[in-house]
């Protein structure tokens, strides 16, 4: 029989090993990003940068990363706002209104959950090209702006659990549907809204394949595309490339650090990215 103290020590050792394996690549990359190219060429990955330099980050600015950061942030913000707004409206209709065709439409929405993004990239490209929207901001956001069936699905479940009395009281006071949604339904649904916001922000910030195919050049380039481009262009300049990955990664890690408990919960509740 092992003593509980010894087995606890073993568990901590295991947890530590896994933590080091998880964090080490990020730490090494962060260190490299503040190392000068000259020192990188002569030192080892573990040698501390002396002195640490921000020259790689200023070089990124010259390579147009400032704009890419702005485009990514704008794209993420607009898609998240649009997706949540339109998903809330649809979910309210599905959860709280009676009308012909409602259930059929709902199952149509659910069925589209089976359509993977990898399959729609090629036809969406053709459609955007036909509309002359290639390499525009609209092309980046349009396909994702009008709500997500998955968000609608989750919100509908949540809205159905809101007590009828709460909604009826507001209606008796003369509130119209929009008032009811804004002043009664939304405040009662904060946890699921926070969950969906975080999940949408993470997935849009990280999106790569669609921006890669539909944009070209620097104008509407997002961070992921810019990072990939930098890597293939300056294959050997790892200090610069690691600064780029840091810029792509750090905002989400900060977001995660702030909302860690909530995000961990959200992942388990929704089961999806």
């Amino acid at each position, binding site marked *: *029989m092992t003593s509980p103290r010894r087995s*606890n020590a073993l*568990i901590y050792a295991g*947890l530590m090993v*896994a*933590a080091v*394996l*998880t964090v080490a690549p*990020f730490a*090494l*990359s962060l260190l490299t990003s503040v190392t000068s190219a000259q020192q*990188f060429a002569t030192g080892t*990955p573990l040698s501390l940068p002396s002195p640490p330099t921000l020259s790689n980050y200023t070089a990124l600015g010259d390579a147009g990363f400032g704009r890419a950061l702005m485009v990514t942030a704008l794209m993420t913000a607009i898609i998240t706002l649009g997706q949540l707004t*339109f998903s809330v*409206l*649809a979910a309210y*209709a599905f959860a709280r*209104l009676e*009308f012909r065709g409602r259930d059929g439409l709902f199952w149509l929405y659910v069925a*589209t959950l*089976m*359509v*993977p*993004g*990898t*399959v*729609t*990239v*090629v*036809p*969406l490209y*053709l*459609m955007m090209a036909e509309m002359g929207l290639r390499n525009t901001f609209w092309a980046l956001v*349009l*396909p994702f702006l*009008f709500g997500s069936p998955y968000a609608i699905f989750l919100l509908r479940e949540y809205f159905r659990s809101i007590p009828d009395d709460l909604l009826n009281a507001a209606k008796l006071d003369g509130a119209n*549907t929009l008032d009811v949604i804004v002043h009664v339904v939304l405040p009662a649904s904060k946890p699921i809204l926070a969950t969906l916001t975080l999940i949408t922000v993470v997935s849009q*910030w*990280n999106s*790569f*394949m669609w921006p*890669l195919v539909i944009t070209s050049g620097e104008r509407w380039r997002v961070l*992921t595309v810019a990072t*990939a481009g930098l*890597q293939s262009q300056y294959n050997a300049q*790892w200090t610069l*490339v*690691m600064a780029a*990955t840091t810029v*792509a*990664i750090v905002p*989400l*890690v900060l977001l995660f650090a702030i909302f860690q*408990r909530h*995000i*961990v919960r959200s*992942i*388990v*509740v929704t*089961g999806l990215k």
Partner: protein
Amino acid sequence: MSTPRVRSALLGYGLLAPSLFGVVCFLLLPMLVVVWLSMYRWDLLGPIRYVGLDNWRSVLTDPSFGNSLLVTLLFIAIVVPAQILLGLAAAAMLARELPGTGVFRALYVIPWICSPLAVAVLWRWILAPTDGAISTLAGQRIEWLTDPTLALPVVSAVTVWTNVGYVALFFLAGILAIPPQIHAAARIDGANSWQRFWRITLPMLRPTFFFVSVTGVVSAAQVFDTVYALTGGGPAGRTDLVAHSIYAEAFGAAAIGRAAVMALVLFVILVGVTIVQHLYFRRRISYDLT
């Protein structure tokens, strides 16, 4: 004057209008367009030309597409079991709920939160043969990504590294949801912790196993960013996962019709997996993690 029923319908469809527009234009219509495209030849620039089933014949008899499906299958066969085993091990350690466990749990999820593209670029440096982190530390040149036998396992390992913390969350939630009385009763009957793990914990995690397997297969079948940045599908197609080969066919080789066929084949496979999921897994299982 409109009756309440008509008004309710107007209101309902009014609220649904934006999302219905999105679902029809950006999910349903593309599915029709991809079927249509699969019968046409288009090089992104010139005119679109009808070719009947030519694309289907040429893709389905193309050894490189066969290779791509095989590589994807191998990739799934490595990634899904590995991330389940490691995720379960991590969850078993986290489930002891020793002080500080929350920090570890959060750390493990970080790779999954990050952009897969940035993560792949990061690993490309770590694995670079001459000035990469591992080669410099080991003091020898290792061709992790260009060696034909190493490339696919290495790409799989990076994917597993990304996903383990995420998979562990589901196992952790599953383990913590097992009523403690069951373990207590077994302890009174003289079962040690190892026996309790095998006889109680694992069987009760069956729904979790199913969930992480199915979602693992569906997401591994669509991995793109990682391959794009790590290997570009090489060496000699050894890491040419199907999502990457669709991309390369459409936007590299400019053979949109053939890419449409490949996308449809992937779609049929994924729908098959999803149907299996629904047959065995009718009710969504949700866990509460506190």
